[in-house]
């Protein structure tokens, strides 16, 4: 690329193509004043504030340096008399209408910083009347008296996050930043990602916690610590602001996954760690506290069931109980649940504890409940459970399919990149029975009938094959099993599948053609694919689509199961699953176990262990008697909770390690107070296979301890000679056993913060895109596995006529243990709600906000109903985070035969109005 030579303040300089005058000046060490321009990634210069004006020789007027790109030979003066006069006048005009600095919303703002630097903090102009404060939002304050109409918040909301809530309405000096139709922020469609707050240069938009009731900033951090977000698999990098050893505010960092972006959970959902329910002392069950499936403990006052104990006593009791069962009933009498919320090091150490301390492979975690079937299909076909490309590959794609996923809710920051891509012209096709925020950006939304995924996808495969849209060269070079697919897919014509899936044959054909013919197509999927008894078949279809069209292994193509938990990829990689040792080495394979047995100095159980739901069944069967549960909450997250809670209550010995007295901890014998995300150091692997380092932001409260330390102490007490000196030690050991971590040392992670695996070299970035030349299978080929159409396990009937589907809401995470204790999230979504289509509600004579009773063959709950036109008719959608109306009391525990994942997305339900219960509340 040719560089552009030009003159900047008398000096010859070079600009890269596309580089602006402002950027070149900055590179030269000079920062030209700027307000509406943000050098942050993905912010387009807008050139409206005119604070950065420079003089260009031969031009009649000045130019905005933030937007103007130099041409060869151009002579630019950044500090000529005219330029300086204009810069100062702009500032003086704006200062005239600002609130007094001392009592302003942010005396430390970028605006005041520049006013000072330019030397204009007073104005000779009369001030204008300005807008009143808006305190309607739980997390943010809007004080437009400080607004300079620079539009950074508009770009933040519309172009970066594409939430499309903020507009610049009206005109002239009445131009106003508005939410929707100039509504109060708290009553608007705002999803509280906080991008606008992060972008605002004046303090007109501020986190509420920083302001007093006069809207003056009173809170300033003592220090800042770089770490990660604890929630979903996107892996956003975060800077935590700490004051008086409390986290007061989170800001997005320019991580490879998030480019400074965050969502409401990441930005405003951090204060659960300071909740009064936080456990700070070990608890031991009182001898007279009988266990009962329906028993409930007050997390604020657990002393009805527990007493405080010293760590020494609690650890001894915890370990002795496990040892007793192991010694009396054998290793299979125990099981352990680790957590996808913990670090790689914790996951590794926990599975090592189960495999070497307990002596079996009875270890699992919530991956079983989310992507087990996806991983089963990917493992079977490609011998790798990981994504083939990062979600940002959407930006290189021409066609993007999002199926069975609702990323604006569950992976909000990943969704922003998909929306960015759609805005840039990529054709987005959303396939989901429920409509969603992405639908508006989609070229097509295919609202197919729940549970008919295979019919839909097979019709697409049929079209691609019968119309000759396959990539023959790719099929010949990199796949196997195509002929079988070709034979079996014959019957799945779009005409035959259309009535099954509810999508017209022509649409199925059109979408199939789009996907197959595009230069680059990528598929994202979520739990709508995996949480079915045919989850593995669903995923097989997606893999087949990619393999027969060669839409994998190139930029903008690929298969991306959006991973749910912040470390579900890493925990699975680290072996926190019953069938695999770290790096997916099958436990049955004698040739694979050797390395582990050598390093761990112990023989390992060659039989795969039980999965989450199987473990619950085994407890009821009397086979498993003791459990160690670290950071999981099966009493909320398992299907058919009555059954799961019964199992937990039946255990002879249950050790729970957590932040709070969770619904699972109700049934514990020993509760060990653990460390929250912000209190620990460790590595976490995001959905993109990116290994990232989290740092300790503050110390755990009271006597709460590091999870890694607790696991080690239990291990020692079970006879393991462990002496790890922290996460670096553990990481170094696991990296020896996991080829996936080759060239990614702990030191490298400390230095770089994030490295994607596989990495070919300690100095080169890891490979974002894999499967570029075949697959890590024995044949080197990807295996195409045909799928047959199979109905959901429990179909609606006269008695239970509707479909219940479960999932999440934007504000709440998993079982709600964290997010419902985060003040902002609780304020935005404070109560249990189920979602129904307004049409069904009118039919049932329900008003929005009424209570309904939902009953399935397994249980019943009463819950408030929300009218949501995104929900198709005859469906009830329910988040599973609400303990007071736990959706999983209703769900069907039927399992996918390969992934062993329950069918959370489909069961038969009856909904009926109930007399208003809220009157009593």
């Amino acid at each position: 690329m040719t560089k552009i030579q030009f003159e900047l303040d008398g000096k010859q300089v070079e600009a890269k193509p596309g580089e602006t005058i402002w950027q070149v000046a900055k590179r030269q060490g000079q920062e030209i004043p700027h307000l509406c321009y943000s050098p942050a990634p993905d912010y387009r210069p807008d050139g409206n504030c005119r604070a950065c004006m420079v003089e260009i020789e031969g031009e009649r007027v000045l130019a905005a340096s933030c937007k103007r790109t130099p041409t060869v030979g151009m002579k630019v003066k950044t500090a000529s008399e005219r330029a300086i006069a204009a810069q100062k006048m702009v500032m003086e005009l704006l200062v005239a209408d600002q609130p007094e600095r001392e009592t302003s919303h942010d005396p430390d703002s970028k605006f005041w910083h520049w006013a000072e630097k330019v030397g204009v903090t007073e104005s000779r102009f009369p001030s204008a009347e300005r807008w009143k404060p808006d305190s309607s939002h739980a997390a943010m304050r809007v004080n437009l008296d400080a607004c300079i109409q620079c539009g950074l918040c508009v770009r933040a909301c519309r172009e970066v996050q594409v939430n499309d809530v903020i507009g610049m309405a009206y005109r002239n000096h009445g131009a106003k930043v508005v939410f929707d139709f100039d509504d109060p922020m708290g009553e608007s469609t705002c999803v509280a990602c906080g991008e606008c707050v992060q972008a605002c240069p004046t303090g007109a938009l501020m986190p509420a916690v920083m302001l007093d009731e006069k809207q003056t900033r009173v809170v300033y951090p003592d220090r800042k610590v770089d770490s990660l977000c604890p929630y979903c698999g996107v892996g956003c990098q975060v800077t935590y602001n700490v004051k008086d050893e409390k986290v007061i505010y989170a800001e997005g960092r320019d991580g490879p996954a998030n480019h400074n972006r965050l969502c409401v959970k990441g930005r405003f959902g951090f204060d659960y760690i300071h909740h009064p329910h936080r456990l700070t002392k070990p608890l031991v069950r009182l001898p007279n506290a009988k266990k009962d499936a329906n028993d409930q403990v007050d997390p604020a006052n657990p002393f009805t069931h527990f007493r405080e104990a010293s760590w020494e006593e609690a650890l001894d009791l915890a370990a002795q109980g496990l040892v007793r069962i192991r010694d009396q009933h054998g290793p299979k009498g125990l099981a352990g649940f680790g957590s996808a919320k913990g670090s790689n090091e914790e996951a590794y150490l926990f599975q090592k504890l189960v495999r070497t301390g307990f002596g079996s492979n009875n270890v699992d975690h919530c991956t079983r409940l989310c992507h087990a079937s996806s991983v089963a299909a990917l493992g079977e076909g490609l011998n790798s459970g990981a994504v083939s490309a990062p979600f940002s590959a959407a930006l290189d794609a021409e066609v993007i399919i999002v199926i069975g996923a609702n990323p604006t809710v569950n992976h909000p920051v990943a969704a922003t990149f998909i929306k960015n891509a759609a805005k840039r012209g990529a054709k987005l096709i959303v396939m989901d029975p429920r409509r969603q925020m992405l639908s508006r950006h989609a070229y097509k939304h295919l609202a197919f009938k729940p549970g008919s995924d295979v019919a839909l996808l097979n019709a697409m495969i049929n079209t691609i094959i019968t119309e000759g849209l396959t990539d023959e060269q790719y099929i010949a070079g990199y796949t196997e099993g195509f002929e079988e697919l070709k034979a079996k897919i014959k019957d799945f014509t779009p005409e035959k599948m259309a009535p099954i899936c509810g999508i017209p044959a022509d649409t199925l054909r059109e979408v199939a053609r789009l996907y197959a013919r595009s230069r680059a197509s990528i598929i994202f999927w979520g739990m709508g694919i995996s949480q079915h008894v045919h989850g593995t078949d669903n995923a097989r279809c997606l893999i087949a689509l990619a393999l027969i069209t060669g839409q994998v292994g190139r930029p903008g193509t690929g298969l991306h199961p959006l991973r749910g938990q912040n470390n579900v990829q890493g925990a699975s990689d680290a072996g926190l699953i019953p069938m695999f040792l770290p790096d997916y080495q099958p436990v049955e394979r004698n040739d694979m176990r050797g390395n582990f047995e050598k390093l761990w100095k112990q023989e390992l159980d060659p039989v795969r262990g039980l999965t989450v739901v199987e473990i619950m069944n085994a407890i009821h069967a009397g086979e498993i008697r003791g459990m160690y549960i670290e950071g999981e909450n099966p009493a909320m997250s398992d299907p058919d909770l009555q059954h799961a809670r019964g199992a937990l209550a039946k255990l002879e010995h249950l050790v729970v390690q957590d932040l709070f007295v969770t619904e699972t901890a109700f049934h514990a014998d020993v509760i060990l107070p653990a460390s929250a995300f912000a209190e620990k150091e460790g590595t976490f692997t995001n959905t993109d296979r990116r290994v990232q380092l989290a740092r300790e932001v503050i110390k755990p409260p009271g006597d709460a301890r590091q999870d890694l330390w607790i696991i080690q102490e239990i291990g020692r007490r079970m006879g393991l000679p462990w002496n790890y000196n922290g996460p670096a030690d553990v990481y170094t050991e696991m990296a020896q056993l996991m080829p996936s971590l080759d060239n990614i040392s702990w030191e490298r992670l400390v230095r770089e913060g994030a490295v994607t695996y596989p990495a070919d070299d300690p100095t080169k970035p890891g490979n974002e895109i894999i499967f570029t030349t075949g697959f890590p299978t024995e044949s080197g080929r990807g295996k195409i596995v045909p799928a047959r159409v199979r109905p959901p396990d429990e179909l609606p009937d006269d008695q239970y006529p509707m479909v219940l589907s479960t999932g999440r809401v934007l504000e709440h995470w998993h079982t709600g243990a964290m997010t419902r204790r985060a003040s902002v999230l609780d304020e935005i979504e404070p109560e249990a709600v189920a979602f129904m289509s307004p049409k069904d509600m009118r039919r049932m004579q329900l008003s929005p906000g009424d209570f309904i009773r939902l009953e399935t063959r397994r249980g019943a709950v009463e819950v408030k109903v929300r009218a949501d036109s995104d929900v198709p008719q005859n469906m009830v959608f329910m988040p599973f985070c609400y303990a007071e109306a736990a959706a999983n009391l209703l769900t069907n525990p039927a399992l996918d035969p390969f992934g062993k994942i329950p069918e959370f997305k489909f069961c038969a339900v009856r909904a009926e109005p109930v007399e208003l219960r809220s009157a009593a509340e």
Partner: protein
Amino acid sequence: MSHDVQQVRSFEHPGQGRKRAKPTPKGRQIDPVAAQEIEMLLRDRPRRRDLLIEHLHLIQDTYKQISAAHLAALAEQMRLSFAEVFETATFYAHFDVVKEGEPNIPPLTVRVCDSITCAMLGGEKLLEELQNKAGPGIRVVRAPCVGFCDHAPVAEVGHRYVLDATASEVLATAAGGKTDPIIPDYVDYDAYVKNGGYKLLGDLRAGRISKEDVLKALEDSSLRGLGGAGFPTGRKWRAVLGEPGPRLMVVNADEGEPGTFKDRFYLLRDAHRFIEGTLIAAHIIDASDVYIYLPTVHLRRGAGAYICGEESSLLESIEGKRGLPRHKPPYPFQVGLFGQPTLINNLETLFWVRDIVEKGAAWWTAQGRNGRHGLRSYSVSGRVKNPGVKLAPAGITVRELIDEFCGGMADGHTFYAYLPGGASGGILPASMDDIPLDFGTLEKYGCFIGSAAIVILSQQDSVRGAALNLMRFFEDESCGQCTPCRVGTEKAAKLMERPVWNRQLLEELSQAMRDASICGLGQAASNPLTSVIKYFPDEFKDAAE
């Protein structure tokens, strides 16, 4: 089978519910009735983004306002966000967005022009009288220049203009329900063709005359853009032609410059001459589509925003967005409408194409006076006996224009000052009545001719008052995008309202507005102000500063 609902003790769920869950998803919900009404209204019209303003007109025309419920339903139909439709709807003066709980807009709106000429000729009094006398079913509002300055004061009742208006006549018009526009006599298609119309176009299309011949004629004639910028027309066409296709063409007939009414004059009387010019241009640049932007007539309508006369904000408006000027470079001939190379011409410029090519460049250049060439259509208004569109030699002086074309000054009025180029062309004293009025002749005085809107002031008028009127116009019509114009016009108007002007500060401000505004509006908004300070020291005589 029946299950008991598990009784959950209040402590069991960690969320203590300081608030109640919303019964609907976040934000405003779509009202099913409004949704149906919008669907009925749009029917099979495309839901394309660039038709947003058209669809807003449809709602406004049908319901005389745009309710929040309709606006939300429109957003859903067009798959746009609430913010997108709201910011566009509230940018344009002709849309009345009414939120829940706000009173409905009365069925009839009377707009009273408050721009310079009307203001001089009793517009304010008319407005006041109408506001006092209009009944509850009539809304009386101010409006910027409506382009009948030769018949000031003017009011618009619905879509009917009342010229040389009195309050009683306006109210009678309203009471009579005569709210549709009046169309004057015009040259129809047959008459136009009979007189040789469309022959040139036919010859061009048939190859009997080459594109090059047309371009050469335009270049030789030195025809310049008559919208006000004065860019050589032939060169512009060539520049667009030099860009890779597909190319588009836009005709700017917005004519919002106070004092200007020539484009409408030609459009209403001899539209085919302009259409032929347009089709010739479209043929030569090989335009795939032509958009004609008119302030009121159907085609692609503006919606009440002076700024949309600025060529790049006009493009934004045609794309269905707020009319914010774009930064240049790139210029519209490079990156224009929908990102395509676009030829933008003023209506009158195209009007003259046929004549110049048919009669030859020499015919055009032979016209002119005082060393200038060509013809200009001067829109003359104010204190002259016969205001109106005056087709006169380019380069004529204001004195000659008044005496030879306007029958002299109006009775009882003495020539005191004049606006040589509409609202932004500055103000000159009668003593400077010998300057040729043309492109390039006025710049050295801090003025310009622009669209050749000449407003004549007499001893009965205050130039300070005129300058304030113009500054308020710019304050209202500023799009609000850049600081110098958005805040500058507002502050300037505030300072100019004061009995004593802070001339030092106003001069500093003017310079910054000129240097740092994004578009011509802000850059030129201070011209009247600086002219007054410079040429009318007498008006500041009493002021102790």
